[in-house]
């Protein structure tokens, strides 16, 4: 039983919606990313997504693009991201999803990635630009190493493909709230709720909603119909804003807690 499945089972038992923050490894630097993983766990994260920086992040809006650029200027690699997880995992036990574009993984090597990610304490891998049709060998290798392959579904995904994606996916399904790149939005659309309902019809896996989820209100809205909400750009924007502040880690933790505040 994967730790991610345990996490969702526990959420269900306690009747809570899950909170999944995203940060980019090495933004603003690796030591801070490690501390942020620990801080976000303490702030109430149920799962954390750690982004691997990439030179050409086509699915990302400006905020996460800039985070990638900052990390790459520091020379941060996939190996560094894994080291960061391994170190943080000595202190926390929240599941971590490695979030990456395909090419850095491809160059690292399939077996090697599965081995080293598992050793580092990674629980799942999500590859933004790897659709199930091209992912089969990767999915198999990841599962052999007890890593959950996470797949995205979008409002444009056909019913037929939802079934195919659900068959390959493990852990949870990541529903993209709307057509577009990552980035905070003022309002959530109804697309997300419709999409989650469609996923439920073909899969028993938990569903997390991301893209544009950026306020406490959004989280509560998402929790109404989905199992968890992913908050990326809103947190990364805080990191960017505070990147020179000595108490960056604590303040990002505070921001994360404010998203979970019930009033």
């Amino acid at each position, binding site marked *: 039983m994967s730790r991610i499945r345990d996490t969702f089972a526990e959420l269900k038992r306690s009747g809570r919606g899950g909170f999944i923050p995203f940060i980019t490894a090495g933004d603003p630097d690796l030591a801070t990313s490690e501390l942020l993983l620990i801080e976000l766990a303490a702030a109430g994260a149920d799962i954390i997504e750690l982004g691997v920086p*990439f*030179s*050409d*992040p*086509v*699915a990302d*809006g400006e905020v996460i*693009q800039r985070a990638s650029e900052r990390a*790459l200027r520091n020379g941060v*690699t*996939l*190996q560094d991201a894994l080291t960061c997880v391994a170190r943080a995992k000595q202190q926390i036990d929240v599941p971590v999803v490695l979030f990456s574009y*395909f*090419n*850095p*993984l*491809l*160059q*690292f090597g399939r077996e090697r990635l599965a081995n080293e990610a598992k050793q580092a304490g990674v629980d799942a891998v999500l590859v*933004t*630009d*790897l*659709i199930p*049709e*091209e992912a089969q060998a990767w999915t198999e290798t990841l599962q052999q190493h007890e890593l959950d392959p996470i*797949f*995205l*579904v*979008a*409002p*444009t*995904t*056909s019913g037929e*493909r939802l079934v195919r*994606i659900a068959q390959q996916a493990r852990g949870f399904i990541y529903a*993209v709230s709307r*057509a*577009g*790149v990552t980035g905070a939005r003022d309002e959530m659309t109804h697309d997300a709720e419709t999409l989650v309902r469609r996923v439920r019809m073909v899969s028993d896996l938990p569903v997390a909603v991301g893209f544009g989820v950026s306020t406490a209100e959004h989280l509560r809205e998402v929790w109404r119909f989905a199992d968890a909400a992913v908050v990326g750009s809103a947190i990364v924007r805080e990191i960017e804003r505070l990147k020179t502040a000595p108490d960056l880690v604590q303040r990002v933790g505070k921001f994360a807690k404010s998203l979970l505040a019930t009033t």
Partner: protein
Amino acid sequence: MQRSTITASEPDEDGHWGQFGGRYVPETLVAPLDELTKEFTRARHDADFWCELDQRLRDYCGRPTPLFHAQRLTAHAGGAQIYLKREDLSHTGSHKINNAMGQALLARRMGKRRIIAETGAGQHGVATATVCAMFGLQCIIYMGAEDMRRQALNVFRMRLLGAEVVAVNAGARTLKDAINEALRDWVTNVHDTYYLLGSALGPHPYPLMVREFQRVIGREAREQILSATGHLPRALIACVGGGSNSIGLFHPFIGDQSVRLIGVEAGGRADSLGEHAARFHTSVASGGGRIGVLQGTMSYVLQNDTGQIATTHSISAGLDYAAIGPEHAFLHDSGRAEYICASDAEALEGFTLCAELEGIIPALESSHAIIPAVRIACELPQSDAIIVNLSGRGDKDVQLVAELYVT
């Protein structure tokens, strides 16, 4: 590396040529790509579609373009007869219009009225803006800020044609960054937008579709050379950025084993990574491309050890790109096509040589093929012929070259 006799080059139904090609995209784009594949497949087998395309290419773009016997260039080389396929004479000044016209007809069939495109040198942007003006479609062109500086004239041409040109300031501000931005636009506006990709790159069906629209170059050239000389040429030589003009010329000759297919990549100003755009450049260990995924397709990609895409350099914006079309990767690995490179300096030499000897000013992209062609011609007997694809005209480059000669 496997060497086999290639007599045809067709991808599987998911757009793979061997391990190359395919679709590596965010999930949101799968539906519009499926829709496009379906419509393209239908159009591909629809005689009326090709009839309308042929008619527009003839009446609007001026096809067929001539195959010109370059006698002074031939005399200069002192070997095989050199023929120039004059894509520079087609409307808007390059081969790009062939694909832009074909895809605009598809967009119209699909009822999409908002067209987006990327451009490097500006030739594809101008071709797209042109067909959009003709069909009355909204047109938005993404272009790297550095390319806008290098190709200011083409920026003005696109605006004259009613297109909105959006400057892209990410990365090295060249073609790759423009494609990223166009993809982000498409993923956001999938419902009403048609992405008119300009090269034989990107996710399936683009590499196949762009090739099919550019094959007209090779089909005409094959007929023209047979009628001019009575036999097939010994070699075809074309510059390769993403690879649309070259695959268009090569493809109808793939079954003709006696015809060498030679692609010329941009050798840039030095051998080290970042200083050129030669993906198959294997003479320097650190400089060449490796198999990877960029912008939706698997191919040879210039990148560092950890999979970050490298910056590239070429004097010509149209060849300044880190990956090569997947069918070229397949033709390279199968040994059916050969890929060499020409430096910035050789491109400039070809540019002036062609101007002085033939009265033709080629685009800097196409200029990369001239000096290699002279070298290849010189090794062959006078009874043989070779064809160089003069993929575009050089008006857009005159100012840049003038500045180089002044400083």
